[in-house]
């Protein structure tokens, strides 16, 4: 009886009794969700254009953030460090295309997937040799990112909004909007979508596979940098950030590997639902730490009913 109360009554009583706290939980979930969405977008873009599941997306977040902080530590001004980091990410995109992907064109998907695991291990080693393994402070103030918080006394309590989080949400929103405009309104964007829709047809009309691959890996690098700055501002920059990137996996399962819309909505859903579940059900009933598995469970439940994910394309093959 007590268990039923904890599942069906107490959480909702808590929500009504402390609406300010509920709003805080939703806000924190939204911020996490936006960052999950961003990382998932990096996966989706590469998958759409090349059918490669890029396992290296997580370490790209760490590598981009470490490069930025490392350059600044060497005395490079903050914003110049950002542009130089973008140049490094572009160099990485070109190198990946030339050294890893181009020789593997036509190989089975699993080989390309394994190649991205190789890229991950290489970047971990390179990053640790160059930047060391110590936790580094993100150059938040130097980049002009506002710190501090604004508290609103509402709903019988208060809700606190960190300026860093507001900035992260705003920048992520801007980046996603720009990406959508790029993909839908520009020639290059349409080429990426064409490759995603039909590889052979896109190649037959002269779309350059090499150029598109470099472009999408570079865009994934930009996304990695923005995510690295946002998350690094909250908790510092270390190799532990890589693990957070894998939270995008259930987002992809939920939203579909090929859907940009799915990555965004899936990320937001998982961010908010996992936070709600942890606070109102996970801690009181299961002792907490449910965020480690909740997103996967949610994604699995969705896959039971929609194997292609919420927004993925339903594949029907005639035999």
């Amino acid at each position, binding site marked *: 009886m007590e268990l039923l109360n904890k599942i069906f009554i107490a959480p909702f009583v808590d929500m009504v009794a*402390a609406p300010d*706290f509920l709003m*805080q*939980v939703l806000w*924190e979930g939204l*911020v*996490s969700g936006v960052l999950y969405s961003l990382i998932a977008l990096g996966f989706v873009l590469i998958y759409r254009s090349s059918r490669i599941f890029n396992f290296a997306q997580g370490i790209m977040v760490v590598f981009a953030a470490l490069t930025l902080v490392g350059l600044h530590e060497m005395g490079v001004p903050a914003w110049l460090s950002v542009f130089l980091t973008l140049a490094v990410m572009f160099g990485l995109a070109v190198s990946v295309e030339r050294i890893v992907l181009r020789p593997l064109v036509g190989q089975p998907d699993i080989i390309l997937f394994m190649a991205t695991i190789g890229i991950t291990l290489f970047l*971990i080693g390179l990053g*640790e*040799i*160059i930047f*060391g*393994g*110590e*936790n580094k*402070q993100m150059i938040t103030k130097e980049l002009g990112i506002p710190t501090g*918080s604004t508290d609103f006394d509402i709903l019988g309590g208060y809700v*606190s909004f*960190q300026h860093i989080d507001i900035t992260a949400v705003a920048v992520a929103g801007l980046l996603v909007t720009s990406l959508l405009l790029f993909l839908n309104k520009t020639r290059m964007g349409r080429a990426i979508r064409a490759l995603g829709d039909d590889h052979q047809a896109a190649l037959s009309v002269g779309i350059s596979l090499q150029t598109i691959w470099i472009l999408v890996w570079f865009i994934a690098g930009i996304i990695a940098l923005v995510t690295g700055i946002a*998350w690094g501002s*909250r*908790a*510092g920059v*270390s*190799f*532990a*950030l*890589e*693990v*957070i990137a*894998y*939270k995008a996996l259930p987002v992809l399962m939920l939203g579909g590997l090929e859907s940009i819309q799915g990555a965004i909505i899936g990320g937001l859903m998982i961010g908010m639902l*996992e*936070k709600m579940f*942890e*606070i109102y059900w996970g*801690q009181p009933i299961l*002792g*907490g*730490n449910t*965020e*480690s598995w909740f997103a996967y469970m949610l994604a699995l439940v969705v896959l039971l009913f929609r194997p292609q994910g919420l927004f993925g394309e339903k594949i029907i093959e005639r035999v």
Partner: protein
Amino acid sequence: MKTFNKLALATALSVGFGACAIAEGIYAPNLTYRTGPFASTGIPLMDGQKDYMTLLNERDGGIGGVQINFEECETGYSTEKGVECYERTKADAVVTQPWSTGITLQVLPKTNTDMIPILAPGYGFSPMANGKVFKWAFNPPVSYWDGASMIVDFIADGDKGSLKGKKIVLLHLDHPFGKEPIPVLEAMAEAYDFELKLIPVGLKEMQNQSAQWLQIRRERPDNVIMWGWGAMNASAIAEAVKTKYPMDQFIGVWWAGHDADLKQVGEAGTGYKSISWSVPQSDAPMMADLKTHVLDAGKSTAEDPDSVFYQRGLVMSMFLAEGIAAAQAEFGVAEINPEQMRWGLENLNITDERLAELGMTGMVPPFSTSCSNHTGHSGAWMLEWDGEKFAPVSDLLMADAAFIEPLEMAESMAYAEANAPWPMNESCE
């Protein structure tokens, strides 16, 4: 230059592995974690350990005239890799330093048959203090249970009756290390009538702790005790600042008192405390020797020799060096074997006079080990972050031995029964 040094270190380490089988001297490998999510905690500690041994090799020609081969085997704090490192190094090693509670628990039964002592200063399984059961394991100078007891005593300001009705949160890594203080804290909560709330942090959520701190905001605890490691600590402190949790009510274990973690929040972290069995003493005579023979000689990769963790690493290697010296003196041999090393660790006698001889006065409290007491229970100080650095804010605190010893006894016997047939150390009186 720093990057070059790191490249040189990486090369030296890889070359070191190849040279392991033919290396001369006393082989005392260290199972390090300079990589991975816990590297931020590991690097300064391992730098300190390595540099102390380098100092002895450079200044004194080793210990008792024998060079110490202090080779590193990288685990990334992974239990599987740690066990591999143990297996790889055990043939020639006189001691193993597993460097994680998870790895310690895995190799603990093996050391009985391999007859290699485990040295786990300030970490590992707390009941290892009972030398009658754990013949080959040593965790000086204090155990995690000692730490939990001292923190609770500090919160109570010496009057544990004042804890009645209070709410204390244990924010802990969801890992064997993070769960270590739970038995003693639960027993204390029952004995002193305070409410203990456990809030775990998953390994994958170390840098994503907003849910845990929302929980703390809702619970409004009187105190938060943190059993954190690696990237968890900096995130927790940042979240505490964000949640506006009073810093003077937030206390961490000794692995949650790393200068670099607090520098992330700077002034905002003022008042945060960490129990510590070591205190940096940058003016100590040993530090001057270290500067001459190691730091200025370009034989170190340390970035902050004044930090709590680096100097704790120095102290940890001092324990090992003292054990080696004690064994050499007792058995009259320079190149000791693991059995003799075990005797040395069982007869550590770190007095104030000895610390003065070593030029390390004030860096660690005096303590001694014995056949039945493999921890020493030295006590510890409470350090506080003043916005720029940690400084002691208490006299030497001592664990409640009367409360902990029965628990140690019961838990160590339970371990022996669960792992029967478990060889007991019958030689202890």
